[in-house]
């Protein structure tokens, strides 16, 4: 019983971070209809920004996080303006291919700037684990997920309650109508890339503080893809639930099944198995919208 609780709790904690990464995909997909396969590399870049600020400039962690956010926002804005805007109106598949290209470019750039070496952040989180009843969680997992959770909450509030957030949702729903209502949809596209890059950077930083960073960190982004599909490509709430479900699934599979198999590795496969099963039942994801329909 204790094992189950432990696995559930640490799964949920990891899941919050997965959710934040997934939201990076969702924000861009919602606004522009493009799956941004460079999301993982934006994570990686963000984590390197923060790492550089902490090690080279010796700034405290919070300042480093802000540096990462600012840097990623700039990268997002520049990429949107220089690479993606000229492609406006092209088929989604061409743009998706471009994001795959971007991911390679970012990876190469990171290799050049920071070398391929594996780096770790200076110790940030307290060593003492956090006890919740029978469950014992390492502080270096709990605090990062709290940061991720806070970021998700902020994003959700922004989309729900601000004028800009409303305009972004309107643009996502019907570009031509939004355009005709005076909304500069190009600004909304750009903003969505900035927000996606920022959420990716935050998740990259917190993941980096848990397990260290290298230019290969972006691969995590692809591992999160099942979460995105599971939650539904266009739902932030779905990304949150999807992330937590995936985190728990992974942990349960790892905790109960790995010891039974000689090779192990169930933890890595479990999310994809779940993905296939769920998509067979709900092709648009758990929370993805088909369409609102009047009955």
């Amino acid at each position, binding site marked *: 019983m204790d094992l189950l609780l432990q696995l559930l709790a640490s799964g949920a904690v990891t899941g919050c971070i997965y959710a934040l990464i997934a939201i990076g995909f969702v924000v861009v997909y919602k606004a522009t209809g493009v799956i941004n396969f460079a999301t993982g590399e934006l994570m990686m870049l963000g984590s390197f920004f923060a790492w550089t600020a902490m090690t080279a400039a010796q700034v405290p962690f919070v300042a480093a996080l802000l540096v990462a956010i600012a840097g990623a926002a700039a990268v997002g804005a520049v990429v949107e303006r220089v690479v993606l805007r000229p492609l406006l109106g092209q088929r989604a598949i061409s743009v998706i291919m471009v994001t795959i290209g971007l991911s390679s470019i970012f990876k190469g750039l990171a290799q050049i700037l920071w070398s391929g070496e594996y780096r770790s952040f200076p110790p940030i989180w307290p060593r003492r684990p956090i006890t919740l009843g029978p469950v014992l969680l390492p502080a270096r997992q709990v605090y990062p997920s709290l940061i991720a959770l806070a970021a998700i909450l902020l994003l959700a509030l922004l989309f729900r309650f601000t*004028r800009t957030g*409303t*305009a972004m*949702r*309107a643009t996502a*729903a*019907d*570009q*031509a*109508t*939004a*355009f*005709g*209502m*005076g*909304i*500069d*949809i190009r600004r909304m596209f750009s903003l969505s890339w900035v927000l996606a890059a920022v959420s990716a950077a935050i998740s990259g930083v917190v993941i980096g503080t848990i397990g260290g960073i290298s230019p290969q960190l972006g691969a995590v982004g692809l591992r999160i893809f099942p979460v995105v599909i599971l939650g539904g490509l266009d739902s932030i709430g779905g990304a949150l639930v999807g992330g937590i479900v995936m985190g728990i699934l992974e942990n349960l599979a790892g905790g109960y099944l790995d010891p039974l198999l000689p090779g192990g590795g169930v933890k890595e496969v479990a999310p994809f198995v779940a993905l296939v099963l769920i998509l067979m039942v709900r092709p648009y994801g758990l929370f993805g*919208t088909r*369409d*609102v*329909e*009047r009955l």
Partner: protein
Amino acid sequence: MTAPAPPLLAVNNLEVVYHHSVQVLKGLSLAVPEGRIVALLGSNGAGKTTALKAISGLLPLENGAIEAGAVTYRGQDLAGLLPHQIARRGIFQVREGRHVFEDLTVEENLLCATYARPSTPARWRRNAPGATGRGGKAVELDRVYDYFPRLRERRGGLGGYLSGGEQQMLAIGRALVAGPDLMLLDEPSLGLSPLLVEEIFAIVERINREQGTTILLVEQNAHMALQLASHGYIMENGKVVLDGPVERLRQDRDVQEFYLGRRGGQAKSYREVKHYKRRKRWLS
């Protein structure tokens, strides 16, 4: 003799081509004087909606392009402006089929239209008081709810759950929030019950009278449109074939036959009308 005041909107010899190959407008010209309601009539495929899209700048989104001619608004050529810029200059299109944001609430739908609020000092002054972008939000919404009390009841509900009539109200309500000088109204009566059509047209007339909004009205329902408007244009095959004050159009034999569906007070069969229309198109 003084020259007549220039119209608010002038369309001159407009030619529009879709996908580089299909020509839909073939030299369309029309003028909309300030403060009036002008009706644009014509059968399906005559190019009415295309004309509106050419004015509001939405053509490129559908692979359409203006090949020749110009759209002039307050003496300025609108060529090269993007839809949101045109909207902020005071031209607001209420598109055919309502295009309500289904996943947004009624109030959020209205809020989006504040982006089209005046962007130039001149327009700002014309719309004062209560015409500021953000600060005027409550005033704007109240004005919409005053015209459409039913929207106030449903303001927290999703746009997608409204009935067809309520969606049309919301679409016009968004235009009210934008407070345009020129409203392009595309088929507001489409798919509505006769009672609702009466209601919507009464409100359009009220908006024109109370807000001083100039309206270019595209309609299939020629009967209603010719009652509301002061001037009418009739389109066939991408250009205007007839225009004039509505009193004169209502007396015109062709208009009576093809658009009002009667001859000498007698209703004509649809088949005959169809036949005449086709014959006329071939001969033109």
